[in-house]
């Protein structure tokens, strides 16, 4: 008799939808159906039952092929690598539970690792900006209940956060927003006429790489100062008009994405967007929020925050202090500069998402990759250790893009004998202790 699991959390993006309904076979082994999820979320749950899933660790041999090894062999190899290496990059964490991260940090502190998460190539710029100027923000429910001006700047939820617009930002009716979409004015600022732009009441096409100048123009206009005729391809009349409209908002919100974090100026683009938001609070209520990508990249920042005081790129390599300097202790820079001796990747795929030059350097070092599935990184690693899918085959805490913590749910059993991230890291930690006790380092 198949059963339905309700209130399931979707472990894909930072929207962390928590209303999925999953139909599970009576033996708890297979997912039969997914309700309420977006196309991507549904695909993730469906992937669980795809054939050809790797169920045991694999080690690369001299001829480049991979042979199956036992978890114990893989754990021992990994622990030895960590203990031997003077400086190890421990990157990923965005797709696992906060509980697993804690164990990973304990290991890093013992072996001298540098713990970095996927923010490093995603919203790291936003974190730098917040470190510099703070951030006035709110929870997504506030947007749903109060917002009457919504700006999407350099983000494309229609593609990257498919249910964001219906759950929180454009269409939902809330306590003070009974008219839903009709009661909101939606702006979209982008260099492309995206599918999100098509949902907006007004699309402002900015020349690629001119966001900083345009945001500066918005701030200048807000103070009633003169502007050049056009800024970033936008006529000054339009800029004055929009700024005046924003001032009359009851509650405004700016959502921004990698259109700001990845383009020229990076953190400065967010920095000045935050300052525009701050300025708007002199006239009305305004908030700003990063459209965080991975479902638990925010959680990694939180756990690193309370344990070491930095949100990512935390350098524990000295073992007696925690340090943080984006540009030095960030993954891509560490790989570019050849600053680490070994790589430990977990719950991520830098092979697909880092620039190739960084991965070429990475592939020359001892590398262990922990991931439920085969990906571009596992195939350039010495060892691939498969684990249960967090949020599908095991639960654990995750943080939404607005930092709201939600406990993900287990809906089906992992394949027979497969370890979870927590179990695997605990075993590696124990092995590391044994080696260190023997004077390994």
């Amino acid at each position: 008799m198949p059963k339905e699991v309700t209130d399931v959390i979707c472990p894909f993006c930072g929207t962390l939808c928590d209303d999925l309904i999953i139909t599970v076979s009576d033996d708890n082994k297979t997912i039969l159906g997914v309700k309420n999820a977006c196309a991507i979320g549904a695909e993730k749950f469906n992937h669980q039952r795809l054939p050809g899933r790797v169920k045991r660790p694999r080690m690369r041999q001299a001829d480049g092929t991979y042979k199956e090894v036992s978890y114990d062999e893989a754990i021992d190899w990994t622990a030895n690598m960590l203990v031997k290496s003077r400086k190890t990059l421990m990157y990923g964490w965005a797709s696992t539970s906060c509980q697993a991260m804690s164990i990973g940090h304990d290991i890093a502190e013992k072996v001298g690792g540098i713990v970095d998460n996927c923010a490093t190539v995603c919203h790291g710029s936003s974190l730098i900006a917040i470190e510099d100027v703070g951030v006035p923000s709110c929870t997504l429910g506030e947007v749903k209940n109060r917002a009457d001006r919504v700006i999407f700047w350099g983000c494309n939820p229609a593609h990257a956060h498919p249910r964001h617009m219906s759950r929180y930002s454009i269409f939902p009716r809330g306590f003070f927003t009974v008219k839903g979409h009709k009661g909101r004015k939606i702006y979209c600022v982008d260099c492309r006429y995206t599918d999100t732009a098509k949902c907006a009441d007004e699309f402002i096409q900015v020349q690629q790489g001119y966001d900083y100048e345009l945001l500066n123009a918005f701030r200048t206009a807000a103070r009633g100062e003169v502007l050049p005729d056009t800024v970033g391809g936008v006529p000054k009349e339009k800029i004055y008009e929009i700024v005046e409209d924003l001032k009359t908002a009851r509650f405004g919100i700016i959502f921004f994405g990698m259109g700001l974090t990845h383009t020229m100026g990076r953190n400065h683009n967010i920095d000045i967007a935050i300052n525009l938001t701050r300025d708007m609070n002199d006239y009305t209520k305004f908030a700003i929020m990063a459209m965080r990508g991975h479902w638990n990249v925010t959680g990694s920042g939180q756990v690193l925050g309370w344990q070491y005081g930095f949100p990512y790129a935390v350098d524990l390599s000295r073992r007696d202090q925690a340090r943080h300097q984006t540009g030095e202790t960030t993954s891509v820079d560490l790989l570019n500069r050849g600053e680490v001796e070994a790589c430990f990747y977990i719950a991520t795929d830098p092979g697909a998402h880092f620039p190739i030059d960084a991965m070429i350097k990475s592939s020359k070092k001892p590398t262990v990759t922990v991931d439920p599935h085969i990906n571009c990184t596992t195939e350039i690693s010495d060892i691939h250790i498969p684990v249960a899918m967090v949020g599908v085959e095991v639960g654990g805490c995750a943080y939404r893009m607005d930092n709201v913590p939600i406990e993900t749910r287990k809906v089906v059993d992992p394949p027979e004998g497969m370890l979870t991230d927590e179990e695997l890291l605990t075993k590696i930690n124990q092995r590391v202790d044994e080696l260190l006790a023997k004077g390994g380092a």
Partner: protein
Amino acid sequence: MSEYIIKNGHVFDPVQGIKGDKKDICVKDGKIIDKVGSGAKIIDASGKTVMAGALEIHAHVAGPKVNAGRWYRPEDKHFDSHKTAGITRIEGGKSIPTVFKTGYEYARMGFTFAMEAAMPPLYARHVHEEIHDTPIIDEAALPVFGNNWFILEYLKNQEIENTAAYIAWVMRQTKGYGVKVVNPGGTEAWAWGLNCLTIHDPVPYFEITPAEIIKGLMAANEYLGLPHSMHIHQNDLGNPGNYQTTIDTLKLAEGVKATNNFGRDQVMHSTHIQFHSYKGTNWGDFESGAKEVMDYVNKQKNLTIDTGNVTLDETTTMTADGPFEHHLHGLNHLKWFNVDVELETAAGVVPFIYDPNNAVFASQWAVGLEIALYAKDPMRCFITTDHPNAGPFTRYPRVYAWLMSEKYRNERLNSFKKADKVISATNLSGMDREITLYELAQMTRAGPAKALGLSKDYGGLKVGMNADIAIYNINPDKFPSDGAAIEKAFAQVAYLFKDGKICVEEGKIVDMGKKHTFWVDAKVKENKQVMHDVREKFLRYYSVNENNYSVPESYAPHQHIISVDATQA
């Protein structure tokens, strides 16, 4: 578990009225007992001071805004991250220590309990994740209610029973300890960029005043008979002339009686009252209102307060008083963090430098000390720094020293760049009271324990009580005359017993003890109305599902549940 006998120490225990007499304390199985066997380990405490473990009644040590303050201030721990040899983890952070340093530092100073002062229910899981990772000390957290939509709607119609039932539900969902109120009404107003600066300013849309919210929550708190009273951060914090609003608020407790089975007498705990005791109309003619406020507190017996002492450091302010942080950012232009929490509350964070050369900050320092020195009943006045708002909790030893040595605080007072202005604006100069060790034990142990409804097991050294014991290298017969020596002695205990185990020895962490999370489970009559409203609000207004709201047991592996039965109320 091993037995101990702490011999020949000078014991200070307000619970038994012991004022420094030499007395042996016996410990077994985590409790204080009357005698132990010959095999008991002997701790020689001769020439030392023995007190119960201290209880922190109000600090921001765990949760979303605390952590924002941590991670958005890398400069607060750059060059200030270290690891001491032994079993401890890396420690970092000056104004907002990491969870590890937080646990260690409290323990090193002789604390065994800390109350997280503001838990947004929607973020409860985060608060408990940090509490879970904070070593050694017991902790609890107060959910905030003063701007919660359910509360505003129920109290608009004086529905005390529904208010109580909802509070009980939230405390169970969030593993909360009591009723916290922050800038009642003002924080909801802040969601529109507004504020409530007096207790009679109406809350936008909800048509209710702060006074009505405060009265209603006091009533609901006593209806439930919770261990702690309503715990309030008042309206109009930090502004010249606010002492009048402060007294108006305190007056709301007149005639309200404490009903509980925990030996608690107060119905309102007014926190960091230093920030609420200012006269004058602007920062130019700013004056201390400590005397006026404390005169009222002294005669109104159903009130307790804590001080909120300014320590004159660079720190990080953080509060659920969203509009205040925005106001503060306008003054110092340092990075402003704000988050508004749907249906419930808000929070702000801004770094702040209490520069001693600034007459206002120096005066705030004086006001904080005045509060404690004016207190006639040390069992109702507790020492805090509203960590980290007025200063980091790691400065307690210095605050104690200022309070215990007139000479020490006068040295500080007279060496201010604007000493004359400070002296004329405050009453501190010429106050010759020096807090005694016994009074300190009242203000940091017995007092807070009683106010939190924990006096049966905590805050004292009576036989049968929990064996949380701090032993300081202080000889009362030769009490140090110089302030620096007092500071040093309180900064590092000779020994700290937590649940009968030695966790700290001469300032070194030797055991992580067994940390407990305290929360209150209040049983009320089945309330269909409230459960219906809960379902309704989650369906229509919350951004998470009701079934994903509650905090699972696994977040508090060693929970200490205090049960309250209000079904007969």
